[in-house]
């Protein structure tokens, strides 16, 4: 689909980018992602780049919108963030699994690292509209990598921020503040998005405190639609068997307790077919 870039604003270390996507916006749920072709017509970059959906709005002055938070990191994301307004991009959306919404109101904690906060604000609103209490913890290396816009925070009861360098909020890592918040707020479920190391650490905390943990993982993806098998990670199924699952269609949202973390550069013993 051709999507028109209708706004592109720098926010700290990131770009907040809105695309006009028509009816498609109505199909997007928190946790879904989009895949964008980068570099233009004669690009040497043949693979799409994936971005979590920050917000999707069904209607507005420009029709349906999908908004993203993009970090200008490498060649592809730099090309994207440099696009002038009114450019069109080739976007496949929405892709992947979404965060599961409990049928009963629960006390939820949303934890985001860096641009991983992006999908959590839409999730917060959805949870709140279902009567959940929502607290949030965001962490990053430094202040300008904390993405937490005012309007996004409407739905959360509390927001705790940690930075490695102490330039904003508590100095330290997300996991330093989690135990206290889980206990104080009597958290029942954690939703998270961010670097894999962070998700692994949150899984440990969640298991320690016996709370559920849904996390959106980020593995390098070639196709985004389940055909290439590049984006896999070992996940233990209902049957107790660990399989290499595709994070693009069996994820990105997964049950943190089922993921075998620390599996980079090795296949965990006992994995099906290993």
């Amino acid at each position, binding site marked *: 689909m051709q999507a028109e870039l209708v706004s592109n604003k720098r926010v700290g270390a990131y770009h907040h980018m809105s695309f006009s996507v028509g009816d498609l916006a109505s199909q997007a749920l928190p946790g879904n992602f989009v895949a964008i*072709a980068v570099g233009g017509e004669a690009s*040497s*970059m*043949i*693979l*799409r780049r994936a971005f979590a959906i920050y917000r999707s709005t069904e209607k507005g002055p420009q029709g349906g919108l999908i908004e993203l938070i993009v970090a200008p990191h490498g060649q592809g994301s730099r090309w994207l963030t440099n696009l002038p307004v009114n450019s069109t991009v*080739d976007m*496949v959306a929405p892709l992947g699994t979404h965060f599961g919404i409990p049928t009963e109101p629960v006390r939820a904690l949303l934890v985001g690292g860096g641009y991983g906060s992006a999908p959590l604000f839409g999730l917060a609103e959805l949870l709140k509209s279902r009567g959940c209490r929502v607290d949030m913890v965001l962490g990053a290396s430094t202040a300008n990598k904390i993405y937490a816009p005012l309007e996004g925070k409407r739905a959360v009861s509390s927001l705790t921020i940690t930075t490695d360098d102490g330039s904003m909020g508590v100095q330290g890592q997300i996991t330093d503040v989690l135990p206290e918040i889980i206990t104080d707020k009597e958290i029942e479920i954690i939703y998270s998005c961010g670097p894999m190391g962070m998700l692994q650490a949150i899984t440990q905390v969640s298991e320690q405190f016996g709370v559920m943990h849904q996390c959106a993982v980020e*593995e*390098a*993806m*070639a*196709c*985004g*639609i*389940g*055909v*290439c*098998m*590049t*984006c*896999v*990670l*070992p996940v233990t199924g209902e049957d107790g068997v660990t*399989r*290499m699952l595709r994070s693009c*269609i069996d994820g990105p949202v997964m049950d943190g307790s089922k993921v075998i973390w620390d*599996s*980079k*550069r*090795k*296949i965990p013993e006992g*994995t*099906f*077919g*290993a």
Partner: protein
Amino acid sequence: MTFSYATTLGSASLPNPILTASGCAGSGKELSQFFPLTQLGAIVTKSIMIKARSGRATPRMAETPSGMLNSIGLQGPGVDHFLANDIPWLAAQGARTIVSIAGETVEDYAVLARKMRNLPGVVGLEVNISCPNVENRGMVFSCHPETARAAIEAVRRNIGGDLPIIAKLSPDVTDIVAIAKEVAHAGADGVALINTLLGMVIDTNSMAPKLAQKTGGLSGPAIRPVAIRAVYQVHAALPQLPILGMGGITSGRDAFEFILAGARAVSVGTATFGNPTAVIKVKDELEAILVEKGFSSVEQAVGYAHREVLE
């Protein structure tokens, strides 16, 4: 003028010459959400092995200039699961299926071939011999005439019926024509050219190979000139041998280049990752080009670049 888009690969008749590439379309389920599989000349499945395989550790992928490396390591649930689940599903779709098989020993190929007899909807067999031979220091079957021959002979002896056997060759050889001759002699009804080139990317941040397995297979437009050369050379040497061409096809123009070089059909692989409907785009564009150029059939255009060109 009436135009016929049909083609053949050995005894397989296909309504059009556009196929998926093995490993780039799973077993069809995911792509069927984007278009009916009957639109394809045939779907070529990912390579099936005897036993379930977890594949290689991640990272399995690195993007490269106009290409990518992969080291999936043939992840899959094994042939029996495939026969019980995927084949009936594909048949129910009305898809024409070319099953790709891969082994670690000559005996593996024999066993797999026996299991491929009389399957519904299956119109051909692609034999991926670009796999490490565990009985011979992990040397790739298709890199040496003797092992290439042994694998194809094992399939020929065990397949029965007239299912065409297409031997898929690796370009990482000194003389691909010699390998093509060998497999044709061993009973292959055609060759698939080319599999990926062995490559490596080093991550300059971590200062270590990007892929967990260090090396991977290079695919995409970057390798197209190598693929075209291989198709042209093999067609020149063995004009009667059907060729399934592949390597970096993203447009009808690219597919046409392969047909002109001598391919009777083509597979679209990596392009699907950038565009889930790439194979349909290629199909529509190639048809338009063939018609515009005045060909009345695919057949007419096969190997057309080999004619003597008068300047």
